[in-house]
Structure formats: C-alpha cells, structure tokens
C-alpha cells in the first residue's frame, strides 16, 4: 500500500513538473516584465525577485492599448451576440419547423465547415471595401459572423427536447418565438454559455482578418495592435513582455474564472461530448 502511495506521489510529481515546464514561457514573460531592462540583459535568474511595474506603466501610458481593448471588446461582444441570435433562430427552424429547402440549408451549413475561411479573405476584403467598411468595426465584424458550428450544436440540442413540452406551450396559445425564447433557450443556457465563450475567444483572438481590414492604428484590435508596438519600441524586453501580458490578461482571467465552461465548450463544439 505504501509503495503504491509512493508511486502515486512520484507520478504526480513528474506530471506536475512537466506541466510547469509547459507553462514556463508564460512565467518567464511575467518575470521579464517585472525587471528593469538593465537587469534583463545582465543576468538570467529565473525567480521573480523584483517587482518593478515601470514597464507596465509605460506601456499603458504610451501605447494605444486602451483603445485596442475597447475595439476588441466591442467587436467581440457584437459578433458573439449576433452569431448566437442568428444561429439559434436558424437552428430552431431547422430543428422544429418544416419548410421547403430545409434539408438543403442544413447541408449547406454543414458543408461550409470544409471551406478554409482565409481562402475567402481576398473576396471578403473586396466586398468590405465596396461597402466602405475598411477600417471600421463592422468591417471587422461582418465576415466573422459565419460560425456554422453554432447552428449545428444548437440544432442537436433542440432535436433532443421532447415534443410533449412543445405541445403544452402551443396549446397555451404560444407561437414559435415564445417556444424558442421561453422554452428551448432556457432549457439550453449551458449550451448558450458554452457557444458564447467559444465564439468570443475565437473572435477576440482572430489575427488574420482584422490585420487585413484595419490599417489605422486607432481601429486595431489587441492581437493586431500589439504587433505595431513591436516596431516602435526597438529593443525593450520588459516592455514587450508587459505588453504581451496586458494583451493576454482578459483571456487569461476569463479562462481562469470560467474554466469549467471553457473546457465544456471546447468539447461540445468539437462534438466529443453532448
């Protein structure tokens, strides 16, 4: 028994060490960001032995980081809300109503999975430019509204709701919209939260599209904006790492708070749990 216990502890120790090595780059970024530039290039102790916030203060006061936060929050929230609303309505119709073209629409949504979105960027850019939306929030948002997985996951969950509950609402004189927002949606808050998290994170982290559609610094989102600072800082390791961590802070904090939901969301959207 004690031998087994010792083996378990040893096993946990090894796994924990591996996990700490895995996360080391983030830890090292934190250590660097808290040091003065002179110390960074003079010695390389790995412990956090200095709490110097000068780099953070400088980054926050000299870069456009606050504006990029605003752009990222605004575009990601609007995208998430629209994606979920349009997705759940369409999924409800696909799941519960009969109408001509239903099968075809569903197949089209499923097939759109296979299209590599970046292959459309040239055409989407031309479209956005024709609409006069280059360097605007809507230019960032509109092409990101296509998230077929939201429709597919909602449809699966709506399919699973027993028909009797539906009949009860219909007998009370409720229509389809009542059904969706008073019955199907409340029964699936968990899924809604999960899909919202997935959509929000992927929009927040999208680099390629905002990078194409935005050229003015004051319209940039965080992932694009911080690459501009890169060019203007020159060699400034502490400031670079402070910038990286400030840019990552919202997703890191969000993940740590909603950890369970995020985990669940990833599994659901990949279809391995449901």
């Amino acid at each position, binding site marked *: 028994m004690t031998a087994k216990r010792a083996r378990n502890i040893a096993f946990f120790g090894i796994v924990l060490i591996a996990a700490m090595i895995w996360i080391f780059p983030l830890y090292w970024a934190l250590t660097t960001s808290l040091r003065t530039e002179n110390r960074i290039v003079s010695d390389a102790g790995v412990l956090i032995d200095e709490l110097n916030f000068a780099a953070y203060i400088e980054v926050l006061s000299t870069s456009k980081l606050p504006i990029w936060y605003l752009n990222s929050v605004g575009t990601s929230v609007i995208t998430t809300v629209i994606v979920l609303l349009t997705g759940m309505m369409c999924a409800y*119709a696909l799941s519960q109503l009969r*109408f001509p073209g239903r099968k075809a629409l569903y197949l089209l949504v499923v097939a759109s999975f*296979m299209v*590599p979105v970046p292959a459309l960027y040239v055409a989407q850019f031309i*479209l956005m430019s024709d609409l006069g939306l280059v360097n605007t929030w809507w230019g960032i948002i509109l092409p990101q509204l296509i998230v077929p997985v939201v429709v597919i996951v909602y449809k699966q969950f709506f399919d699973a709701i027993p028909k009797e509950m539906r009949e009860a609402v219909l007998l009370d004189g409720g229509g389809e919209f009542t059904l969706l927002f008073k019955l199907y949606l409340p029964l699936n808050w968990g899924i809604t939260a999960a899909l919202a998290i997935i959509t929000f994170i992927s929009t927040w*982290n999208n680099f390629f599209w905002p990078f194409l559609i935005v050229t003015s610094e004051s319209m940039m989102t965080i992932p694009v904006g911080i690459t501009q600072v890169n060019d203007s800082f020159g060699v400034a*390791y502490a400031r670079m*790492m402070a910038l990286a961590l400030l840019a*990552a802070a919202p*997703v890191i904090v969000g993940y740590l708070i909603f950890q369970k939901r995020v985990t669940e969301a990833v599994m659901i959207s990949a279809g391995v749990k449901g």
Partner: protein
Amino acid sequence: MSKMKRRRRELRDAVLLISPFVFVFAVFFLYPTYKVIALSFTDAPLIGEGQWIGLANYAKLLNDRLFYTSLWNNLYFVLLTVVPTTVIALLIALAVSKLKGRMQALVLTLFFLPYVLPVSVVTMIWAWMLDFQFGILQPLIAAVTGKPVPVFKNPYWVMPMIAVVTIWWTNGFNVLLLIAGLRNIPEDLYEAAALDGATPWQRFWRVTWPLLWPVTALVLTLQLILQLKLFDQVYLLSNGGPFNSSYVVLMQMYREAFQLNNGGYASAIAMVLFLVIVIVSVLQFQLLRIGGRK
C-alpha cells in the same frame, strides 16, 4: 379549418427565423465563395475590374517556383506538427486522466492555458524565449549545436521552431478532446482486462487505443486542416523568410493580393488551398475510418 392556417403560419415563422442567418450567410460567405472562384479566372487587381483570362492564372501557378516552395513548406509543416502534437496530447491526456480532483484541474489548467492566448502574444513570448542574444533557450541550443542560433533567421531552424511554437500554443485543445474521449471509455472494460491479467501495456493497446480511435482520428483531421491554414505564426515570426524557407501558401496569397495587387492570381492560389483542404480532409477521413476498423 386550421390545418392550412397552421401550415402557413409555420412557413411564415420559419422564414422569419432563418432569414437573418441566411442573409448573413449568403452575403458574407456564399457570395465571397462565388466571387473568389470567379476572380481566379480574371486578371483583376485587388480593387477594380479585370478581364476574363480563362485558366491563365492556373497555368501560371503550374510554372511558379515560389508556389511549389509554398506547397512544400505547408506539407513540411504538416509533417512537423500533426502527428507530433497528437502524440504529445495523448501522453498528456493519459497522464492527466490518471490524476484526481484538484490536482487534475490544476495540471489541466497549466497545459490548456496557452490555447486561449492571442497568436501575437504567443509569438512575442517565444521570440523573447529564443532571442539570439538574451533568449533563455539559447544556452540549450548552444549545448546541442555549439553556438547560439538566430532560429527565425536560419533556414533549417525556422520551420521546426515555428512548429514547436504552434504545438505549444494549440496542444491544449487536443488534450481536452482526448480527455473527453478517455472519459467515454467504460470503466468495466478496464476491470475486465485487469481480471484477465492484462498488463498496463496490453490494456492500452487492446482497450484504450481502439476505443479512443474515433477521437484520435478527429484530432488528426482537425489538426491537418488547421495546420494547412498556417499564416499568422509565419507572418509574425519570420515573415516567410529567410530565403523563402518558411513561405507558405497563405503567405503567397496575402502577398499577391495585398502587396502586389494581383487579386485574380491570389484568388487562384486560394482556390488551390481550398481544393487541397477539401480533398485531404475527405481522403483522411476515409483512411482513418478504415484504420479504425482493424
């Protein structure tokens, strides 16, 4: 009375419910898909009209050495990432699923965290880790090669290192899927195997591996498609260089469209990527299904 009326109301509601999605889908997805196909047969600049030139863009692609370089680099990157990340994720998933409660949550958090970071944060951190002068990993590299290496400026190191960064960044997703897959394997199968005197090695190959295969296959397929779409990390870490040794297909599409103003040619490049991804994913899906039956 009401059958007709109900039917018509159902139809009206259906139209109301699907129209927002269908509108967005048609305008910002289907139309661009059509447009990119149409553009690939023209000599259009990025902004403005072009002439129909038939298959000339595709003919040009066949003689474009840079395009072959890009394709080769995409393939090389797939080799460097897809199977390695799946193996690493499987090892981590097996280890994590042996842990319980808080310990499991803690370890899983550490392994998953990089996945939620924006790509530019990831590349900034790794550019610092591998900095030629002061990077903390340079002593390690020097121990192997005898001297520090500017990895993103070295044609031999650049792709493997971008692969390392990519695996670090995206591996958490695979770990999660595999853990979910492991949880779905019924416990009594292991008990039965243990009663039969199976060694842990046998239990893995006879129970875990075959039952986990559908999820492993899913991970492999998703990774393959994802890694073929490589752009961000290359753009941010090496910009396709040095000497085009990390030039990939989407990099070429980006340059042709947004720097050289060749909308038509860029669209033809996009079409090839599109076709490659469709073919590869269908093929791989079939192959993996056959593999799973054995």
